[in-house]
C-alpha cells in the first residue's frame, strides 16, 4: 500500500516536468510502467493466498486443498491458464473465482451468498461489504487466493479448453455480449476495445478481437493496481468496465461475467500468462 502511494507521488512529481509533446508523455508513461515492475506488492497477496488454501475454515472446518480447479482435486499448477472450463459437478462453465465459490460451498460449508460476499478479512473478522472486491486496506480471502493461484500459472501458455458444447456456447454468448450496446451512453465493450492503438485519456486500450492485444491484456490480470493500492482480479476488471459502461452492477461470479472472461481467454489463446502483474 505504502509503495503504491509513494509511486503515485513520484508520478505526480514527474508530471510538471513533461514536455508538451505527446511522444514525450508516452515515453514518461512507459518509464513509469517499467519502474513499477521492479517491486510488485502482489507477492504479499500471493503469500497470503497460499496460506488460505491450506487453512481450515468454514462450518465444515476444512481447507480448500481438495478443490478441483479443472485438472483434478488439489492440482493448482497450470489450472488458471486452462480456465474458464466446463465442470460436470456444477454443469456450468466456470472461471477461477466462480469455481472458488463452489469449493468454499462444497468443501468448507459456506452458503453461496457467504462465499460470494467474501465476508472474511485477513484476521478472520467478518467484513460485510456491498462489493465483492476489497477496498483499500481491507483484506479478501478470495483476492488472496486468486493472486496465488494465478501465480501458479506464471510463464505458461493460455489454453482454455473448447471441447465441451457448453464451453463453445458460453464463448459465443460472451462474444455477443462483447458487442452488446446499451444504457444511457450506448456503450458496449466494443466501444473502447474494438480498434487498435486507441486511448481513453492517457490509458492505452487493448483491441480485444486482436489476439496480440488480448494476450497482453488477459495475461496481465490479476494485477496490483497502484492507483487503488489493491490487487484486482479478472472478475473485478469486468465489474469495473461494466460500471463505467453505465450498466447496472455486474454480479460477482455471474454467468455474464464468466462468458466475457471465456471470450477473452479464448481470444488470448497461445499467449504467455504473466500475472499477477502490476499496473498504474
Amino acid at each position: 500500500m505504502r509503495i503504491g502511494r509513494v509511486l503515485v507521488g513520484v508520478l505526480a512529481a514527474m508530471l510538471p516536468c513533461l514536455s508538451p509533446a505527446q511522444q514525450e508523455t508516452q515515453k514518461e508513461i512507459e518509464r513509469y510502467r517499467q519502474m513499477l515492475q521492479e517491486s510488485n506488492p502482489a507477492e504479499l497477496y500471493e503469500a497470503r493466498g497460499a496460506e488460505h488454501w491450506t487453512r481450515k475454515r468454514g462450518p465444515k472446518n476444512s481447507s480448500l486443498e481438495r478443490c478441483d480447479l479443472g485438472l483434478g482435486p488439489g492440482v493448482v499448477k497450470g489450472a488458471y491458464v486452462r480456465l474458464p472450463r466446463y465442470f460436470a459437478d456444477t454443469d456450468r462453465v466456470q472461471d477461477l473465482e466462480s469455481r472458488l465459490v463452489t469449493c468454499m460451498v462444497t468443501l468448507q460449508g459456506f452458503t453461496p451468498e457467504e462465499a460470494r460476499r467474501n465476508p472474511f478479512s485477513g484476521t478472520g473478522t467478518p467484513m460485510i461489504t456491498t462489493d465483492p472486491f476489497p477496498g483499500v486496506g481491507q483484506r479478501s480471502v478470495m483476492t488472496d487466493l486468486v493472486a496465488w493461484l494465478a501465480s501458479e500459472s506464471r510463464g505458461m501458455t493460455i489454453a482454455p479448453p473448447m471441447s465441451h458444447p457448453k464451453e463453445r456456447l458460453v464463448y459465443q454468448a460472451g462474444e455477443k455480449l462483447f458487442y452488446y450496446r446499451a444504457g444511457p451512453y450506448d456503450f458496449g465493450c466494443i466501444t473502447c476495445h474494438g480498434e487498435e492503438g486507441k486511448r481513453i485519456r492517457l490509458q492505452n486500450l487493448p483491441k480485444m478481437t486482436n489476439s496480440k492485444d488480448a494476450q497482453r491484456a488477459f495475461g496481465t490480470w490479476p494485477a496490483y493496481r497502484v492507483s487503488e493500492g489493491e490487487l484486482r482480479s479478472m472478475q473485478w476488471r469486468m465489474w469495473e468496465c461494466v460500471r463505467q459502461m453505465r450498466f447496472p452492477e455486474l454480479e460477482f461470479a455471474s454467468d455474464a461475467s464468466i462468458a466475457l472472461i471465456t471470450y477473452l481467454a479464448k481470444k488470448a489463446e497461445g499467449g504467455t500468462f504473466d500475472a499477477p502483474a502490476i499496473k498504474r
Partner: protein
Amino acid sequence: MKAETQPKLILALALSGVCVAGCASQPSDSETERALAGMIKTSFRTRGQATIDRLSQDDAQALCSKHAGELPKGVGDAIEKVQQATIRYPSSGKLMGDWREGERIAQSGVGKQFTDAPTRPAGGSCYNCHQLSKQELSFGTIGPSLYQFGKQRGAGEAIQKYTYGKIYNAEAFSACSNMPRFGHNGVLTEEQITHLVALLLDADSSVNR
C-alpha cells in the same frame, strides 16, 4: 469476425474428416441468443441510479449490436433518419453558450455511473476520447482531434446547428457512432450542450486559440 473464422474452421474440419452432419456441435445463433438473454437476466442488478432496465436496448442499440462487424448501408441510413428526428434545439434559439463552462463540462467524466451522485450534473467526458485544447495533454484518441475545430469551420449558423445536433445525437449523423447520444439520452441538458458548442466554435475558446 465470426464470418471470417467460421468458414476456415468448417473447411479445416471437413478436410480432416471430423465434420460429419454439418458440424452439429457448434451452437446455433438462436441457441446463443437464448443463452445471452438468460445471462443478461440473471447477471446484473440495479444499483443506485443504474437500474436494470438500462440493459433493454432501443432499436438503434439493438441494430448496432447486431451489425457490429459491418453495418449495411440501408440499416445505417435508416438509423440516421430516425435519430435525426429526435434532435431538439433550445427554444431560445441560442446555440452558443459560454466556452469556459464548456471546458469544465468537457473535462468532467462523471455521470450516470452507479457510483455517481444522481443529483450531480453529468460531464461530457469529451477529453476521454478527443483532443480539444492544446494545453490538455491527457486526452483520448477514440474520437478525432477537435483542436481548432472552429478555426477551420467558422461559427456560422449552419455549423452551430450541426455541432449542437452532433452532440445531442451523434447517431443522427453517423449511425452506430461510438459517441453517446448526450441530448437524446438525457445525459447533458440543452444548456450544457450550448456551452460545448461554444467551446468548439467560439474564436476565443481554448480549442481555437
